[in-house]
């Protein structure tokens, strides 16, 4: 059982580096569907996992390529501390089922917005122009 948990962490970690995210978007569905946690428990556990600087190794890889804006990142971090508290206060009283669907809908919506944007900017890039729209 513990090995499964460590493996889930490794898979989520690959996405952390690949996508530059915290990993919660992978951890939460994995904890809910693979470990059968309740939505709130999954979200709380995910937030706890994200406290240590798990993305540090990934960040150093991005830095080697020079694609990091530290100024923007630090300002964001300050805002996030405050926003995180507000979000937590909103989520805790919600029902687990509603929260799950809200989360899933939110992810799909952001994905569609991004995909649309990625396709619109494609003409100057010949390699990606064969990709379809949203």
């Amino acid at each position: 059982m513990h090995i499964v948990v460590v493996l889930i962490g490794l898979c989520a970690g690959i996405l952390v580096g690949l996508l530059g995210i915290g990993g919660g978007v992978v951890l939460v569905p994995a904890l809910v569907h693979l470990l059968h946690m309740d939505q709130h428990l999954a979200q709380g556990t995910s937030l706890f996992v994200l406290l240590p600087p798990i993305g540090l190794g990934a960040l150093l890889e991005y830095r080697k390529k020079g694609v990091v804006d530290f100024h923007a990142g630090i300002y964001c971090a300050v805002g996030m501390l405050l926003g995180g508290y507000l979000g937590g206060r909103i989520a805790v009283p919600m029902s687990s089922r509603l929260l799950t669907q809200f989360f899933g809908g939110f992810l799909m919506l952001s994905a569609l917005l991004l995909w649309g944007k990625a396709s619109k900017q494609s003409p100057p890039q010949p390699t990606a122009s064969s990709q379809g729209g949203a």
Partner: protein
Amino acid sequence: MKKSIGFLFAGVAGGIASGLFGIGGGIVLIPIFGLLLAFEQHKAQGTSLVALIPPTGLLAVLAYAKAGYVHWLTGVLLIPGLFLGGILGAKIARRIEPLRMRQVFAALLFLLGAWQAFGTWRR
């Protein structure tokens, strides 16, 4: 200065999503950086990782912990894999060209969202 205020607000938006959904907040920061602040996709992702280094979710964790919504053991076991996997994923990302990177990002996000939203219907 105006730009710094923009970054601060991006952080607040990311933080609300972080606390609300138990996530890091990168999935909100990256679209904001990429679409509103015109960062190239790799730079948006690298910068998002900077914002996720400090324990920005600390206040959110306390809110969940107070309600008993944290499974500590599972959390501890997840950490080493995440760290190592992160390095591996970043090495893969460096080989992907920027536009394709944004499409990979959007596609994975959509799949995760669908898994989360429709997974509940089976139970």
